[in-house]
């Protein structure tokens, strides 16, 4: 008798497991992201990384050079346009989001220092270096990422440059921008992401 009950239970379980109609699922990954080509060229933008309300780094490019539209620089004039300097870009980041960025809910990590503390930036041996006239200890990890990403993307197209932060209390080890970006591996020819 018990065996019969067990068999019936197994059958019922099988039927229940099957279910009818459309079942819910877990989240399933399917394919890659949508990749858009909407960033202005590095020569014509100043890109700062702000924080979204979800704590994610959101790039905000600002067109800075109107000369390209006037024809003052560019292929027609024969003058190669220069990207805005890293120091200016960092100053723009530390100055905080503008009106449009604020409307989208973007903000700065509060522990970021004042723009006036930027003592200088330099690029040497493939590593960018930012010197600040303030201690680095109060900086949170996410604030440091804002700085690192902003500098990395100011110094290179794909943000792959290591960045060393130097404060009055010493230097931090070189760090790279960790914003979920896809970069081609340094040794391998163009990536598979397309």
């Amino acid at each position, binding site marked *: 008798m018990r065996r019969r009950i067990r068999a019936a239970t197994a059958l019922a379980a099988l039927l229940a497991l099957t279910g009818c109609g459309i079942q819910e699922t877990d*989240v399933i990954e399917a394919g890659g992201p949508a990749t858009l080509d909407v*960033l202005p060229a590095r020569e014509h933008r100043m890109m700062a990384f702000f924080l979204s309300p979800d704590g*994610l780094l959101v790039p905000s490019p600002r067109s800075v050079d109107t000369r390209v539209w006037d024809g003052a620089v560019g292929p027609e004039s024969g003058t190669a346009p220069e990207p805005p300097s890293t120091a200016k870009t960092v100053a723009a980041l530390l100055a905080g989001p503008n009106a449009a960025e604020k409307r989208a809910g*973007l903000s700065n990590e509060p522990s970021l220092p004042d723009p006036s503390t930027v003592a200088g930036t330099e690029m040497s041996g493939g590593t960018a270096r930012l010197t600040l006239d303030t201690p680095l200890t109060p900086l949170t990890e996410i604030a440091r990422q804002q700085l690192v990403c902003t500098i990395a993307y100011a110094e290179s197209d794909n943000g792959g440059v290591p960045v060393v932060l130097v404060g009055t209390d010493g230097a931090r080890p070189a760090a790279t921008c960790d914003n979920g970006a896809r970069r081609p591996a340094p040794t391998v020819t163009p990536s598979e992401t397309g």
Partner: protein
Amino acid sequence: MTGPRTGGAARARRRGADRAAAGAADVRPGSAVRPAARDRRIAPFGLRTRLVLAFLLVAAVSAGTTATLTYREARSAVLASAQDTAVASFREQVETLAPELPIDPVLLREYLFVIASKSKPHPWVVFAEYGSLRVSSGTNPASTVITPDLRRMTLARSRGSFQRVVSAGVPYLTIGVPVLVRTGPGSSMPSGLVLFAVMRMTDEEANVDALVTAARDGALPGLAAALIPALIAARGVLRPVRQLRRAARSMGSGRLDTRIPVRGSDELADLARTFNESAGQLERSVDELQQAEARARRFASDVSHELRTPLAGMLAVTEVLDEDADGLDPDTARAVRLISAETGKLAVLVEDLMEISRFDARAAELNTDEVDVGETVRKTLDHRRWGERVRTDLPDGIRARLDPRRFDVVVANLVGNALRHGSEPVTVRLSVQGGLLVVEVADSGPGIRPEVLPHIFERFYKADAARTRSTGSGLGLAITQENVRLHGGTIRAANGPDGGAVLTVEIPLHGPHGSQEATA
């Protein structure tokens, strides 16, 4: 102490004789067929039901499993096709966007309308998140269907994801695609913009429901078809089983020559063969027993017969001696009288033995006649000169169909017993109760001890073990019982409320009926 043992043996012998008589009466060689109404009924959990259920279960499981697997595969295919199309086309649509960063909500809304208008395969509503902005192509800027899991996955990973959600009974496909911006050849980074599409899967639901219907419509005829072999198989098993049951019942009712036809060579045929062999052995054993019994019975009968002739001579001689005893000297006279008395008893015993032998051999005949019972009883008492010693309650006009001679033996035995073992007054009471003639013989003695009551009709049973010398033959009540039985009646002994023994005889008024008349 020899009484009970002899009685038991005699009882066993009688039973054997009954059975032999019943067997001899209606032997039908090979009779295995006796269609009874209850053979046809279907037991709630009989073999047939179980077999049919087992067949149906197997059919249901196989049909169900097949249908289930097919259904699952087909459902997966239907859903996968819709999902893949939707995910691919949604990403394709998102990639046609060219928003300016940071996002302008008004412009973004325009873009979402464009994407929504190119829904594929079904209309979808597009939701966008950027920073704290929430924009959609529908009426609500944020969706209630998109789960936090999908949102978190889409924000955290640079990959598209989807999830099926059932909300209020309606299945939805929710797709999340993060927007990346290209930062160079082969490199990109999250832009902070993520887009979600929410699509109702009503068409897919209809398709899946159609699959269920199809699976059911396929499985039910399959089950119905399985019923036919189930019934055939059940019939194949049940027919031999039914035969076996009938044969067993037939054997139980005494027809030991019952055999089952053996067909085929399966387990059931083996069973039938074994049954037949066992029945044969049983028949042989019973036959031997019956022969042994018949021999013993014949021996008793022969002995009685052989004793009768010399006894007749002895009786004649003792009568003469009795008459002359007065002229002999006192010692010799006492011896002669003793011999005479004992010879008389021996003659009674031999007569009783012969009577019992006739009963055992079923040779006792019932010669019924319509008589006035009261008159008959009165005659019996008068004949034995018990008129003064017995009180009677004999209503006139009770007529019954009886064998007068045997009824006389019954009444005489009962009254004689009462006078001998009980004490006077002895009462004979006659009445009619529901078609039965009731004769009650009661005495005023101490009654019968309870432990003796069940045995008093046994042959040679002595109520008092110490009393080795009885005035009776020890067969009186046994013969009485046989006579009552021959009439189709019953006899029972009990103690009355006043302490005396009461023996009650009940005989059908209209004579014995049924087989007893035929077999007697």
